[in-house]
């Protein structure tokens, strides 16, 4: 199985503090891979480093390979051009721009061999609400609508692999699974997704592979069915009552 995105011993430090420690990870083509872990485990730091992006000023070491080519030296916008698209944690759209303008910001690349750029119709089929909101400013959208818009923008850019950092934050528990299922449908159509999710039970029901992150290192990794049985995962995430698990993690700045 060919890998679309992989990293080898990726290390990220903030100042002297190591937030991600020698993480090796692989997203096979056409698969959905989940990253789970407690608050502050380094999930966002990892996924941001894969995209070459950060709100802070981290030092990143280690190789990131996209479709067989190293992209470690490239800045975030170049990685986006090559099909590595990140929907970051929290604010992922421009509040001062309308839904239409947000989507028009993304330019569909000319060369889309082995990539699929989602057209407007496909996006509206996926998120019908956005069509009604086309001329509203980003600030006027609900939290869920913002997530949908952010994902839509990424899809328009013809992703090879889509990196989603807690797309379910702010969504009603019932909608979380719905959103993740729709993402799963995209994977079944050929997209590859790396998903960071606090909502472990929901995540485990849609992903193929899972990485469990603790204090910046991968402590367990395997197919979702196996990981559902893994002692650490069960103890930390699945052992408690449903309500607690359905509660989305607090949004991080």
């Amino acid at each position, binding site marked *: 199985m060919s890998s679309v995105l992989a990293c080898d011993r990726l290390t990220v430090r903030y100042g002297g503090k190591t937030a991600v420690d020698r993480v090796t990870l692989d997203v096979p083509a056409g698969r959905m891979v989940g990253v789970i872990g407690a608050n502050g485990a380094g999930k966002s730091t990892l996924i941001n480093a894969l995209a070459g992006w950060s709100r802070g000023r981290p030092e990143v070491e280690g190789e990131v390979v996209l479709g067989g080519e190293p992209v470690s030296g490239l800045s975030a*916008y170049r990685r*986006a051009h090559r099909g590595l698209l990140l929907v970051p944690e929290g604010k992922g759209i421009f509040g*001062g721009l309308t839904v239409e303008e947000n989507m028009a*910001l993304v330019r569909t690349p000319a060369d889309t061999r082995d990539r699929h750029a989602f057209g407007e119709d496909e996006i509206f089929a996926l998120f019908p609400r956005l069509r009604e909101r086309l001329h509203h400013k980003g600030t006027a959208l609900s939290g869920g609508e913002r997530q949908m818009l952010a994902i839509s923008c990424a899809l328009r850019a013809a992703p090879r692999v889509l990196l989603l950092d807690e797309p379910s934050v702010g969504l009603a528990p019932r909608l979380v699974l719905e959103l993740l299922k729709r993402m799963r449908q995209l994977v079944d159509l050929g997209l590859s997704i790396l998903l960071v999710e606090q909502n472990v039970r929901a995540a485990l029901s849609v992903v193929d592979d899972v990485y469990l992150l603790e204090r910046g290192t991968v402590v367990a990794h395997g197919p979702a069915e196996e990981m559902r049985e893994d002692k650490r995962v069960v103890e930390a995430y699945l052992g408690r009552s449903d309500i607690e698990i359905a509660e989305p993690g607090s949004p991080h700045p």
Partner: protein
Amino acid sequence: MILVQQFINGLVLGSGYALIALGWTVLLGAARLVNFAHGQLYMLGAFVAWFVMEQAGVPYFVSIPVSVLAVALLGAFMQASMTRLVMEQNLTSLMIVTLGFGYMLTGGAAILFGGAPQTLDSPLQGMAVRTGGVWFTLQDVLILACALVLFAAVWLVLNRTRIGAMVRAIAEDPKLAQLFGINAPLVYLGIFVFEAATVALAATLVAPRTPILTSMGFEEVILTFMIVVLGGIGSVGGSLAAGFGLGMFTAFFGTFVSPAYTTAAAFGFVLVLLSVRPKGLARR
């Protein structure tokens, strides 16, 4: 009659002010950048045009694009050297750096062009229209026309095109813009070059009305600042209106009260306004 004449003067002054402020409006409002060398770029715009007319003997209308190009290049150089500060949105350092650039330009221009006052000769400045007791020059007409056309164009680009959306996106969140595949440093470069180019253009159009000195530029920064604040920081239409308002005020206050204290009076007004509304007249 004097009222009509002052109205015309105000209109012309105002369109000149608005032109000078246009680049900054975009820079400050859309990209949240400041450029304290703005006034010195104005000075340079006028002097480069004067220099090529004097030295190479090119006609006025050829000197305009030469000057715009030269100052735009300088702007590109300035912005390129500040890219890191811009991406970090380190406004404090940026202000000081541009102030330093302005000071370098003052010194450099004095060495290059000498300290004597000069005049930038436009053929249109000598062509006056007199009707019904009022008069104005064709240069005045040119300034007014350019102001209106440029403001309309900038408004359209900012609000109706993808480039405009990109500029507004960058202003809101340059980091996030990268995830949308936007090369933020390049867009910043474009905005800065635009600012430099428009202020140079404004200089070549407005400067023929008065003698030029390499020490000038401060007045222009203050005018620009007042216009940007009065117009609501970043609002293109607001800046045009504020430009005209300030022009009218200068014309009438200068004629009927005191020409020496017009800037002071206008500034007093802006100061009071700012203590009430620290973000200017903008609604947002």
